[in-house]
C-alpha cells in the first residue's frame, strides 16, 4: 500500500518511464531489476491485460516505470498494441525505454521506428548483448546511437550489466526539452508526411497530437486516427486534403500502408547493415532444439520435465508446510480462551474453528511458491515456449488450434488467467473452445487440495500421482475440445505461427520476484474469498440444524444437514457428507475444499493426513480428486467465461458439462479402481 501512495501522491513530481519492446526481449527482467520489490501488478483500465508499475529512486529523482505489453508494432490491431500506443499518446511519458534484442535487431527496430514516429523521447536498451556475442554477432551500440541520434545503452539484464547507465540516460533524456532522431524515410514519403503534417498543424483541435505521427497514420489510413480527425471541427477539410496526398502516393506505390511497412523495413535493413557484423550462428541452440523438439523424444522429455517440476514442488515445500501447520496448531493452543466468549472462542480457535481452516490453507503457501519458482526457472530458460510448440504439433493433428496451448499453460497457474489469455486466438470458434475447456486445467488452487490428499495416501509418490492428474486434465481438455469441434463449433482450424525465444540462463532473482508476486496474490485470496467462505461454513458448522442454536456437534449442524441432502447422489462414489459439503463450498474457491475438510473433521493440521488415511481408501480419494479436477470451475472463473464469451450460454455449458463429466469420470475411476484393487 505504501507503493500505491508513493505512485499516487508523487506522480506529478516523478520522471515517468514506459518500458516498451517486442515479446521475449527481457523487458520484464529490466523492469524487475529497475524497480526491485517496489512494484505492483494490476490490469490496464477496462482491459484484462496485466499492467505492471513500479518506482525506483535515482539520486534525488523518483522514477515511475510502467511495463507496456510486449508488441511487434504499434498499429491498433491487437489489444496489446492499442494499450501501448494509447499510453504513449495520451499519458505522454517523459521517456520511453525501448528494449531491443541485440540478437534480432532487424525485427526489433521496426517497433523503434514507430516509437520515433510517435514523437516519444526514447532510450534504447540494447539487451542480450552477451547472447549476440555468443552467437558471433558484433552489434556496435555506438554506431547505432550515431545513426539514430538516440541514446543506446548495451545491457545484459539478468546480470544487471548496463542498468546503471540506463538509469542515468533516463534522467538525462527526461531533462532534455526534446529529442531529434536522425531517421528519415525516402523523399516521396518525407514530402508527403511534411505536407500532411502542415495540414494537421493548421487544425486547432489536433494540436495535442504529434503532427508527424498523425500525418503518417492518416496516410496509412489508420481507422482510429481517421475517426479522431473526422470528429475535429476542421476534420472534413483535413481528410479531403489528406486524400489528395495519399492518392499521389497510392499511384506510385499501391497500398500506402504496405508501402510504409516496406519503407520502415528498408530503413531498418540499412541500419542493421551498418551496425551488425558477423554471421548469426546459434548452433548450440539449434542442436538443443533438435533434441527437445524431437518427433519421438520431445513429448517424453516434456513429461519428464513436468515430473521434475512436481517432485521439486513437493520435496522442497514439505518441511516448510509442516512448519506452518505446526505454527497454527501452536497458535490455536495458545489462543483458546482468549476472547472469554466460549461460542466465539470455539468458532475461531476450536477444532472446528476458523483458524484451523485458514491455517490448513496457508500451510500450502510454500507449495504454491515452489511451484511458481520452478515454472519460472523453466520458462526463463526458454523451455515452456518449446513445450507449447510440441503440444501444438499434437493439437493440430487432432484438428485443434495450437494457439490454445499458451492459455492452457496459463490455466495451470489460474483458470481466470487462462480464460483471459484466449484473447490471442483470432478465430471465434477456436477461442470459445479454448475458453470452455480451460477450467479443466489443474490450477494452483486445486493443487492445494490434491497435494494434501496425495501426500496422505501416496507419500513419496505424491508427485507422480499429481502428474497423472495433470495428464488427465490435458487429455480431458483435448477430448472435450474434440467433441465441441465435431458437434457444436465446426469449422477449419486457424493457423498458428509462434516464435521460440533464445535459451538463457534462468535468473534466480527474476524467479524469486515472480514467486513473491504470485504468493502475495494467494495471500490476498486467502484473506478475502477463502476467509469469507470459511466464515460462512463456520457459522453453518456450529448452528444446530434442528434448533438453529449453537452446537459443538458438527454432525447435527446445518452444514451436515446440507451434506446429507446431496449425499444420496454421491453414494455410488463412496462419499460421506463431509466430502459432499467440501465440494459444494469449493465453488467459492477450490482451496476452500481443504479448509472445509479441516474444519468439519475438526482435526489439527499435523494429524490431518493420518485421519484421512483412516477414514477413506485410496481409490475413493483418487476418484474424489478427479471429481474436484473436473467439476464446476470456481465462481470467479465462471464470471470470467461469461465476460469473455459475452453471454451466460457458454458459462452455463461449462458448468453443466463439468458436473456431468466429473461424475462419470469419478464413477468410472471408482469402478475400475475397485475391480483392480478389491482390498483397497
Amino acid at each position: 500500500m505504501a507503493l500505491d501512495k508513493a505512485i499516487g501522491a508523487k506522480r506529478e513530481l516523478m520522471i515517468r518511464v514506459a518500458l516498451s519492446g517486442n515479446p521475449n526481449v527481457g523487458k520484464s527482467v529490466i523492469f524487475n531489476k529497475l524497480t526491485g520489490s517496489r512494484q505492483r501488478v494490476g490490469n490496464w483500465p477496462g482491459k484484462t491485460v496485466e499492467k505492471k508499475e513500479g518506482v525506483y529512486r535515482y539520486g534525488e529523482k523518483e522514477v515511475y516505470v510502467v511495463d507496456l505489453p510486449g508488441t511487434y508494432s504499434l498499429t491498433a490491431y491487437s489489444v496489446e498494441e492499442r494499450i501501448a500506443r494509447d499510453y504513449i499518446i495520451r499519458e505522454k511519458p517523459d521517456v520511453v525505454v525501448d528494449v531491443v534484442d541485440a540478437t534480432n535487431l532487424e525485427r526489433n527496430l521496426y517497433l523503434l521506428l514507430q516509437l520515433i514516429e510517435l514523437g516519444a523521447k526514447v532510450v534504447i536498451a540494447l539487451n542480450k548483448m552477451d547472447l549476440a556475442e555468443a552467437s558471433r554477432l558484433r552489434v556496435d551500440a555506438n554506431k547505432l546511437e550515431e545513426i539514430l541520434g538516440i541514446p543506446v545503452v548495451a545491457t545484459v539484464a539478468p546480470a544487471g550489466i548496463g542498468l546503471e547507465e540506463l538509469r542515468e540516460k533516463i534522467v538525462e533524456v527526461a531533462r532534455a526539452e526534446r529529442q531529434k532522431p536522425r531517421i528519415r524515410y525516402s523523399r516521396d514519403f518525407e514530402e508527403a508526411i511534411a505536407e500532411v503534417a502542415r495540414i494537421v498543424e493548421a487544425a486547432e483541435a489536433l494540436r495535442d497530437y504529434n503532427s508527424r505521427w498523425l500525418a503518417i497514420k492518416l496516410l496509412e489510413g489508420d481507422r482510429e486516427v481517421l475517426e479522431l480527425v473526422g470528429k475535429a471541427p476542421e476534420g472534413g477539410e483535413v481528410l479531403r486534403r489528406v486524400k489528395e496526398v495519399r492518392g499521389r502516393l497510392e499511384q506510385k506505390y499501391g497500398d500506402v500502408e504496405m508501402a510504409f511497412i516496406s519503407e520502415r523495413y528498408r530503413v531498418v535493413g540499412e541500419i542493421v547493415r551498418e551496425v551488425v557484423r558477423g554471421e548469426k550462428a546459434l548452433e548450440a541452440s539449434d542442436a538443443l532444439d533438435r533434441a527437445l523438439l524431437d518427433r519421438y523424444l520431445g513429448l517424453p522429455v516434456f513429461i519428464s520435465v513436468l515430473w521434475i517440476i512436481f517432485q521439486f514442488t513437493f520435496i522442497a515445500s514439505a518441511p516448510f508446510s509442516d512448519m506452518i501447520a505446526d505454527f497454527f496448531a501452536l497458535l490455536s493452543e495458545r489462543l483458546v480462551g482468549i476472547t472469554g466468549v466460549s461460542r466465539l472462542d470455539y468458532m475461531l480457535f476450536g477444532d472446528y474453528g476458523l483458524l484451523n481452516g485458514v491455517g490448513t490453507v496457508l500451510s500450502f503457501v510454500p507449495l504454491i511458491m515452489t511451484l511458481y519458482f520452478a515454472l519460472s526457472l523453466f520458462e526463463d530458460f526458454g523451455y515452456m515456449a518449446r513445450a507449447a510448440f510440441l503440444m501444438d504439433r499434437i493439437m493440430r493433428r487432432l484438428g485443434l488450434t495450437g494457439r490454445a496451448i499458451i492459455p492452457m499453460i496459463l490455466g495451470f497457474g489460474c483458470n481466470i488467467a487462462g480464460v483471459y489469455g484466449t484473447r490471442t486466438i483470432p478465430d471465434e470458434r477456436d477461442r470459445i473452445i479454448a475458453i470452455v475447456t480451460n477450467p479443466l486445467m489443474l490450477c494452483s488452487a486445486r493443487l492445494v487440495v490434491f497435494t494434501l490428499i496425495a501426500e496422505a495416501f501416496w507419500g513419496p509418490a505424491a508427485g507422480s500421482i499429481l502428474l497423472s492428474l495433470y495428464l488427465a486434465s490435458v487429455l480431458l481438455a483435448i477430448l472435450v475440445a474434440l467433441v465441441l469441434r465435431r458437434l457444436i463449433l465446426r469449422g477449419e482450424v486457424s493457423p498458428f505461427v509462434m516464435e521460440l525465444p533464445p535459451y538463457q540462463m534462468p535468473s534466480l532473482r527474476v524467479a524469486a520476484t515472480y514467486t513473491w508476486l504470485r504468493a502475495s496474490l494467494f495471500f490476498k485470496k486467502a484473506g478475502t474469498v477463502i476467509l469469507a467462505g470459511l466464515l460462512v461454513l463456520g457459522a453453518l458448522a456450529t448452528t444446530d440444524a434442528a434448533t438453529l442454536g449453537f452446537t459443538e456437534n458438527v454432525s447435527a449442524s446445518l452444514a451436515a444437514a446440507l451434506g446429507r441432502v446431496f449425499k444420496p447422489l454421491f453414494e455410488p462414489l463412496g462419499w460421506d457428507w463431509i466430502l459432499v459439503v467440501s465440494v459444494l463450498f469449493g465453488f467459492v474457491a477450490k482451496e476452500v475444499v481443504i479448509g472445509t475438510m479441516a474444519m468439519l473433521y475438526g482435526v489439527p493440521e499435523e494429524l490431518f493426513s493420518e485421519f484421512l488415511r483412516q477414514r477413506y481408501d485410496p481409490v475413493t480419494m483418487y476418484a474424489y480428486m478427479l471429481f474436484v479436477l473436473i467439476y464446476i470451475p470456481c465462481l470467479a472463473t465462471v464470471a470470467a467465461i461469461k465476460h469473455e464469451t459475452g453471454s451466460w450460454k457458454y458459462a452455463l455449458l461449462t458448468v453443466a458439462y463439468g458436473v456431468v463429466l466429473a461424475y462419470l469420470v469419478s464413477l468410472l475411476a471408482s469402478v475400475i479402481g475397485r475391480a483392480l484393487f478389491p482390498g483397497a
Partner: protein
Amino acid sequence: MIMPSAAVVYGAVLGTLYVMYGIIQVYNGVYSWWLGGGAKAQLGVEVKGAVIPNIFPDPFSGFALITTGLLFLSALYYSARDGRGYRGYLLAGWMLAVVMMILNVIEIASSMLTAYYPVLLGEEPETWSLAEDPWGVAPHMVLGLLALPLYVELKGMLRELFPRRYVPRSS
C-alpha cells in the same frame, strides 16, 4: 558410418544404465502401486542398510530415467549416422541427468530438515536415516554423478547457450 567420439560412447553406456534402472523402477512402481506387492527389484550394493542406488517404486520417475537414457543413446545414433546434430541430444540428456541429480540432493536435504527441525522448537527430532529415506541415494544421483564428466565435451555448447560474462566495450 562415422566413428563416434569417446564422450558419445561414454554417454551411450550411461544411457544404457539409465534405461536399465528406469525399467526396473517402472517395474517396481507398477508392482508396488497397482499390484499391491511389497517386494521390489534392486540393482545395487548395500551400505549400512541402505541400498545404493535405491530404486524406489515410482513409474513416472522410471519414465524420466528411461527418457534420459534414450537421449544419450540417440546421441550415439546420430553421431554414427551423420556425425551432426548429436550434440543436442547429448546436451539434453546431460541437462536432465544433472537436474535429476540435484533433485535427489534436495530430496535428502528436505527429508533431513523435516526430521530435525523440531529440534529448533526444543522438541525431539524424528528419526531419519539414508536407509529409511523414501529416495535415499537413488539412480538419479549415482548416474547423475557419472554424467558429470561429460561437461568437458559440452563446455563449448554451454558457453554458447549461457555466455558467462559480457564485458561492454568502451566507447
